[in-house]
């Protein structure tokens, strides 16, 4: 299965600033997925990122708040813009591995103060 390197692992940010999270995969993948996991909760899909096209966002998530880049088949970034304390969450990237099953990065724990 794929190995995902996600950076940073954690950060504490001031409200109103932005943070860019990087996700590097050790193999080429068509789709990469970005999730949010709020404290004590399950995972919610933010968007799906395909190389060479604009990301597809789920209901409740917009590009201005969570811009995504996908410059090649092994890398993607998610930016959390104009942060507020409500954005404090774990953000995870994921790729599909094989016919069934997904691999996740270890996540970025974001605290906004």
């Amino acid at each position, binding site marked *: 299965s794929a190995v*995902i390197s*996600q950076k940073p*692992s954690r950060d504490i940010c001031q409200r109103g600033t932005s943070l860019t999270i990087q996700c590097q995969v050790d193999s080429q993948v068509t*789709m990469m*997925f970005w999730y949010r996991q709020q404290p004590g*909760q*399950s*995972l*919610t*899909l933010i968007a*799906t990122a395909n190389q060479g096209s604009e990301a*597809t966002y789920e209901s409740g998530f917009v590009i201005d708040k969570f811009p995504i880049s996908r410059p090649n088949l092994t890398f993607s970034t998610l930016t959390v813009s104009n942060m507020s304390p409500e954005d404090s969450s774990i953000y*995870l990237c*994921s790729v*599909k591995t094989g016919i*069934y*099953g*997904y*691999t*996740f*990065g*270890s*996540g970025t*724990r974001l605290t906004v103060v």
Partner: protein
Amino acid sequence: TQLLEQSPQFLSIQEGENLTVYCNSSSVFSSLQWYRQEPGEGPVLLVTVVTGGEVKKLKRLTFQFGDARKDSSLHITAAQPGDTGLYLCAGESSGGYNKLIFGAGTRLAVHP
């Protein structure tokens, strides 16, 4: 909108007890996956069930997919403290747009 209802959300048991976690939906999924997540880590895939009625075993864990592919269960026999963690079910939708829909998760604590 496809939803997965997972229950119970919290489970605190003694070592050696058995437990079952349920995942139910009104929608049909192309596959149902179970993950386990440790603090500070991303979810790790335990098993994928694809065929209605399918049963898979992973040591003391038994996974079942409903005949109609709308529900699934995870049964742990003789739970051990090492089983402590967050268990997540996730359904994969299809129709030209694959994505995972997660249940709320079950936080399991097994006490010695």
